[in-house]
């Protein structure tokens, strides 16, 4: 067998918009996509934990992903939905503004996020350019495609320590 | 049809060991966890061979053998006794209770098979 550089892999991502930006989450982490439904609020949790909802008999937290990433909270509307994600065995729903597409991304095309002053990019593991197939999504598309921030699913885990610090 | 063996031992792991070793040799294995259950299972299972431990709660192996032998239908059923050691005294005791033979624990599958074939066609 010949020695090769790590092969570029094609990975599937689901893309969605949040505060006018495009984000992507690996399909492998996705459990399901649900329509937005107001969750039951919880006491004594950080504001981005919007509450808990009933997911097929499981009591699952719902997180405002915009707030979690440091953006202003999403205003929910008819196309708002919840991405249910598997976080190391636990499930959590994340509120996003709108679903966009499922795209195939080659790992070779992913760039690390640039270090920006004052911006918390710890939950973004890479940036990638995606050429939009449907142009009526309201995000700006030109022939250079649209930039998608890929979210590091592991960084989304909800722990009490993290929340206590938040 | 494969031969049926009833194993009576209060230790589940010992019963499992017997079951696994003997199933691999083509026997059908039933289990019971002490003498009292063993006696009841004997009558349900009607095995071709009984293998019993000696030290068990409620009814020990010797008592079980005597009780089994007292039932006319089991007069001719071979019975092997399992124990960690067999002094001559113990062998005599086993035989006078009605045992056909004995197996020393721990057993290896081959010796076990040979002992069984010695008493069970």
């Amino acid at each position, binding site marked *: 067998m010949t020695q090769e550089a790590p092969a570029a892999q094609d990975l599937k991502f689901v893309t969605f918009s949040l505060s006018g930006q495009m984000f992507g989450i690996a399909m492998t982490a996705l459990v399901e996509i649900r329509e937005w439904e107001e969750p039951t609020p919880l006491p004594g949790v950080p504001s981005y934990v919007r509450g808990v909802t009933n997911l097929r*008999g499981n*009591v699952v937290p719902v997180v405002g992903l915009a707030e979690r990433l440091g953006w202003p909270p999403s205003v929910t509307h008819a196309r708002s939905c919840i991405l249910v994600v598997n976080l190391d065995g636990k499930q959590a729903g994340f509120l996003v503004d709108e679903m966009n597409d499922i795209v195939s991304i080659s790992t070779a095309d992913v760039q690390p996020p640039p270090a920006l002053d004052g911006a918390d990019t710890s939950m973004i593991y890479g940036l990638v350019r995606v050429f939009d197939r449907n142009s009526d999504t309201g995000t700006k598309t030109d022939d250079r495609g649209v930039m998608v921030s890929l979210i590091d699913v592991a960084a989304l885990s909800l722990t009490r320590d993290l929340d206590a610090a938040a | 049809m494969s031969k049926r063996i009833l194993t009576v031992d209060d230790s*589940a792991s010992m019963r499992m060991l017997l079951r696994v070793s003997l199933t691999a040799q083509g026997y059908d294995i039933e289990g019971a966890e002490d003498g009292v259950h063993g006696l009841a299972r004997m009558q349900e299972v009607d095995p071709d061979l009984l293998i019993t431990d000696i030290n068990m709660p409620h009814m020990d192996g010797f008592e079980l053998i005597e009780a*089994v032998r007292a039932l006319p239908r089991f007069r001719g059923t071979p019975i092997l006794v399992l124990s960690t050691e067999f002094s*001559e005294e113990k062998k005599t005791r086993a*035989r006078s209770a009605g045992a056909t033979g004995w197996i020393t624990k721990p057993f290896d599958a081959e010796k076990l098979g040979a002992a069984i*074939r010695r008493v069970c066609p």
Partner: protein
Amino acid sequence: MSNNELDEIQAIFFEECTEGLATAEAGLSAMASGDASQDVIAGVFRAVHSIKGGAGAFGHDALLAFSHAFENVLDKVRAGDIPANAEIGQRLLAAFDVLADHVNAAIGRCDMPDDHQARTMLDSLLEAAGRDAPIAEADRTAAVAPEADDFGFVPVVATSLDFDTPDGADPDAAALADREADDRPWIITFSPSRAAMANGAEPLLLIRELERMGASVVAADADTLPPLRELDPEQSYIGWTLTISGAVDQSEIEECFDFVAPDSRVEYRRNVPETPDRSDAVEADPAGSTGLHLVSDADPAARTGGTSTADIKAAETASQTIRIDVTRLDMLLNLVGELVIRNSILTDRLPPEEHEKVELPQLGRLTREIQDNVMSLRAQPIRQAFSRVPRIVRELCATTEKQVNLEVQGETTEVDKSVIEKIGEPLTHMIRNAIDHGLESPDERAAAGKNPIGTVRLSAEQKGARIVIRVSDDGRGIDRERVRQKAIEKGIIGADASLSDDEIDNLICAPGFSTAETISNISGRGVGMDVVRTNVEALGGRIDIFSTPGQGTSFTMVLPLTLAILDGMIVQLAGQRYVVPLSHVIESISPQPGQVKALSPRSEVIDLRGNYVPVCRVSDLFGLHANDRRSPEESLVIIVESEIAGCIGLMVDSIDDRRELVVKSLDQHLYPISGLSGATILGDGSIALILDIDALVSSAQAAGGSKFTLKGVAA
């Protein structure tokens, strides 16, 4: 056998060891307190015996050797050669601890223990018993050997077996070596006794076994065959002569004849020279062999006593075990929980006259039975977690030179399996704390006018949907000044902080506060009470501390029965629904004007037949800003009682319903949240949060407690 299978069986063996150790420990403890029946001793013997058996089967040689030595001593205790008194019990408990270590080493939980001291002790016990007993085991066998026993049997004796020949003749080593090198064919003569077919034996099988080894029958001796009418088909009359290759080992041939009836004649010799060697022949006196089956038919009936076959069958079915992944049980339990709830919803929806119809109560009863059964699958007595405690106490007594009387209560309380698995460590820690920090030395105790023997109480009880486990001691109580100083040193509190006694006591559980190194000499234990608290909270539980200077300290773990079904009252509050566990509810009241009085803008009390009970609005406790702050007259006050902090009134908007609910833990997908003991899914699919009354009452009192005292107002 595959390794997988073997591992699996070994796992079962380890479980049996754990059970066996528990039995042995209980029995030896009884003996140590001078109270051991013959049955108890037999149980201890069997437990150790089984451990030994498995140890041999799975190749745990050190465990085998130690359990063997232990078993020998127990055998003497059983036989009465060693007295089953308190002193022996104490010594055997010490050996038991080493045995437990050996088991743990076999499991791989710890290193191999140094058992030298324990072995010496066991050996000396055995030796002392041997001196006292008239004949040691080996001597007894030898003495009996030449004589026929009650059944007229004489043991089969062959020199190749590992014991002394009766006449004391040593097998000639040179001759033995000579034989091994020999390849002259064997000639075997085998004349089964008349009774050779007794006990289900079949001499023909021996012939077949020899044939499989390559033997061939060269002659059959039918001389003793009687005339047909005298022939008893159950007796054996024929003898055989076989030859087999000289390459076959003598021991293999001997093995074939291992089970042969005692008065059979077996000879094997090399075909040349012709002289049969005495040591090569296996023979026994043909003494009364026919007495073998003189056991009466009535005998087994007497043995089984009144037990019917049906009973035995039922017990047998129950005792067979299968291993099931706990997650599958959980799934089943969840489904059954839903079934219970649907059932109660169905009942609610039907008009009352329908309730009396046969089907509904039947369905309800069936559902309940399924639920009880499924719940019981996961429930186990807390004894399993408590079983480690006596040993910890013994060890700590030795290291601290304190004297402790351990009292255990409620061992049979059944708890979910997951709770048992996880409370071990917190429990150990609390016990260590109680003995190490709580109890004074015997001298100190005597000086304080106390019994020099300290008492540590360990108890478990179920209270509604919670399990309360308490460790209390009658020691010196928490040294609050010292705790306070230490908390200041560690920067946990400011130097000028004014704290209540309870608050100081609770500092013990504050992160970063570990009194272990400073207040006691048992250091190096690593973790402090903060870790205990974290563990308990991870179980959805809570820990409460109560201490009285000079009189003792108690630590109370309040744990949920995970996955439990709860009787709950569903209440409305600011548009949300919450569940108040019924076990905490005393009454609900529609306040009359003036019955609820404000003491301050944030604290209110309700006049309850002359007693003033603090009232709190759940919305305030949770920091929910209800838009409509209702007047008390438009609200309901539910009086709830907390085990630890007395009564309070919870002000809610309305009561919706009362029904059974499946408790879903919040930490399954999130983490435990203070003030909530979980959540439940209501019939319409929405979620209601379950209030943790104990925690709410505590925090309400912490918030309002300093502003008024209940008694002061009432007086």
